């Protein structure tokens, strides 16, 4: 590893941090312009004006926006996400369980989806334009075209109601064994796998096909390598950058975009937690969750960038 790479990585990380600050500002502005008054939504319709004024004072809602922003930012930087307005619980500890659940489900889906998508993509290239390629594409595109809730309900209908292999609801809790957890998330993980599969598979296929046009592939073929060997040794390494990009994008989706699947399978993850608190105008929670989601996205994108650099010899060895 030479220093230019280190420099690149440091640059990317620094850029990510700057971006995160910008996002924090956007989140704060976004929650500011949410219609509805926090005090009013906590106290309900019958609240007296005195009670409202007292609560606004207590929550510090009367301070100017920039003061509240700096106070919030200061808290976040020192690891204090504040307390939920509606329940009074500490946000950091409530979120940590939820985040762990979300990451667990995303990991389960990713462990299946990513290798499967890449393998299917490779196979599609190997047998391109033949029946195998067509079948893989048709299956993947169909599973992506159906809305998530439809796939979810189909899985529930067959695997939970009809054959009763897996539970229809994926409640997980502390003290559950790892095997039990896997059993509980089997259906939502399958649904998520089907949703993200096609994007990654098609991208892998397209990226490799692109490389396959190159002269050195022809050379490899002419020197007598078997088709799969050509793809594995020569085409795939050169297609890694775009594939990693799309994989990271889908991983981010698995973490931040799964509200619908969480609701269908009653899975206690971040999505449901966020939706509940937006409905109650519980601003500190919305801000905290928003920031975590943004951080996940930025982090995965940095990883994608850096992997692309590392995978590309031209970037690795600049002249």
């Amino acid at each position, binding site marked *: 590893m030479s220093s230019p790479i280190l420099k690149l990585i440091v640059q990317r990380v620094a850029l990510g941090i700057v971006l995160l600050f910008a996002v924090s500002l956007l989140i704060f502005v976004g929650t500011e312009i949410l*219609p509805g008054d926090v005090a009013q939504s906590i106290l309900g*319709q*019958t609240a007296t004006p005195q009670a409202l004024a007292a609560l606004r004072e207590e929550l510090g809602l009367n301070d100017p926006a920039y003061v509240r922003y700096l106070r919030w930012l200061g808290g976040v930087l020192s690891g204090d996400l504040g307390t939920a307005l509606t329940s009074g619980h500490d946000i950091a500890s409530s979120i940590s369980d939820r985040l762990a659940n979300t990451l667990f489900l995303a990991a389960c889906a990713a462990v299946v989806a990513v290798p499967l998508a890449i393998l299917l993509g490779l196979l599609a290239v190997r047998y391109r334009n033949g029946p195998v390629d067509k079948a893989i594409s048709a299956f993947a595109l169909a599973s992506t075209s159906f809305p998530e809730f439809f796939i979810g309900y189909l899985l529930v209908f067959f695997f939970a109601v009809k054959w009763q292999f897996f539970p229809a609801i994926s409640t997980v809790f502390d003290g559950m064994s790892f095997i039990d957890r896997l059993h509980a998330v089997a259906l939502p993980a399958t649904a998520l796998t089907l949703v993200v599969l096609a994007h990654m598979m098609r991208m892998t296929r397209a990226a490799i096909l692109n490389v396959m046009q190159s002269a050195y592939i022809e050379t490899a073929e002419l020197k007598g390598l078997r088709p799969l060997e050509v793809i594995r040794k020569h085409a795939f390494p050169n297609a890694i950058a775009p594939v990693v990009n799309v994989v990271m994008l889908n991983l981010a989706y698995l973490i931040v975009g799964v509200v619908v699947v969480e609701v269908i399978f009653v899975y206690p993850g971040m999505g449901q937690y966020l939706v509940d608190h937006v409905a*109650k105008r519980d601003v500190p929670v919305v801000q905290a969750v928003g920031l975590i989601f943004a951080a996940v996205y930025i982090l995965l994108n940095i990883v994608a960038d850096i992997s692309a650099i590392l995978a590309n010899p031209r970037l690795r060895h600049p002249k």
Partner: protein
Amino acid sequence: MSNELEFLSQRVAKGRLTRRDFLGRAAALGVTATVANSMLAAAARAEGPVKGGMLKAGLQGGESSNVLDPALNLSQVNFNFGKCWGELLVELAPDGSLEHRIAESIGSSDDAKVWTMKIRKGVEFHDGKSVTPEDVVATLERHADEASKSAALGILSGIDSMKASGDEAIITLKEANADFPYLMADYHLVIQPNGGKDNPNAGISAGPYKVTVDEPGVRYGGEKFANYWQGDKLGHADQVEIIVINDPTARTAALQGGQVNMVNRVEPKIVDLIKRVPGVTVQTASGRGFYPFNMFCDTAPFDNNDLRMALKLAMDREELLEKILRGYGTVGNDFPINEAYPLFSTDIELRKFDPEKAAELYKKSGHSGSILLRTSDVAFPGAVDAAQLYQQSCAKAGITIEIKREPGDGYWSEVWNKQPFSLSYWGGRATQDQMYSTAYVSSADWNDTRWKRPEFDKMVATARGELDQDKRKAMYRDMAEIMRDEGGLIVPFFNQYIDASGKGVQGWVANPAQEMCNGHALVRCWLEA
């Protein structure tokens, strides 16, 4: 033949014959499976509750922002869980009467102003302390204090002073109220040690189950409280669990797949499908909730009673009941009370769909042009369809209704109780007085029909203080007729609570007060062995 079957069904109940064998014997004797199953159920009931095991409910109405404090209970999950761990002074029995719990007896002075509650001895909190009259007074004090933000604040606002004395709690009211004991059945008024003033979220009361799991928006669990004061009667399962399932399809699937033993809020449109699932029983209870079309009596054109009457007569209630609720309800009569309330007079004539009479009155009112009706999906399930059906029946009377579909977000703050003609829902109250005082007196915040009649206010107040039940019943009859003929309320129907229980669940008793046996499904039911 039936003697043999009956004998066999009792053997099943005692566990000496398997269910499958019994059904086989029944089929051999030429009895249908339905009849055989109901015989089994009867035998299981006669055998008495089965103790032990774990009962699970999958319920709609829970958010991750919920807390255990009973003062802040608003959604169904907290309501149901509150009935598992909490104990009230009194409960509403399935027949509408009062069941005495922590209050052994309740008596009043002749003017219905001073109420004395004798506190039952030997009732124990989960933390081992005995329930005292001081705890009861402290509980009521906390809920009557604005700082607690209690949802029961309104019903306690009539209290002037309270004190504990000996084994009694004595409450003095500002004005006479013959319904005071019924107010104490409000589900928020869970008796807590020192009224919950120390820690309202501790989840400690004197109910049949101790709180073991409290994961807001996910699940709740309870473990049988060994010293529950009537443990022989209630709380049969060793453990109860509530899983929050807000998605209706997921709820039904969980019941079918056997992950839960009971669910709430079955949608009317799928009831017929659910009924066909083996082992699942649909449980209905005619409730007090209704879905009104509200007109502002003080805003043109609805300030004209001929027009209001024309709009009432132009509603085809039977059709709406059939198409919107699939028959799971009863037709309304344009006042907010039905037979599920105590002191209801059943002889008030039902309003019929009469387009000719409606057309005649509409002409007489002198109104011309269309009338704007606001609706939204959040008003009640099927509210948009209901508005469209109403538009068609009005057209038969020559009345043009223009429908405006409002967004769900903001409907309750911008449309309901703000716009002169809109759809809404009411959950019903424990007594007629509570319903009228909440929404149909001049001073009420939620007077969503702008029904402001000083003479009606007076009738409400007089009836509230009347201890003679016959006289009261007659007063309520008069009030109902006035509302029905002059009020701003069009009631198409009262809805039923539709819940469902799964395989082997016994002991369900429908209660018109609320869904899930008034929240007691988990403490009343048991799983047959």
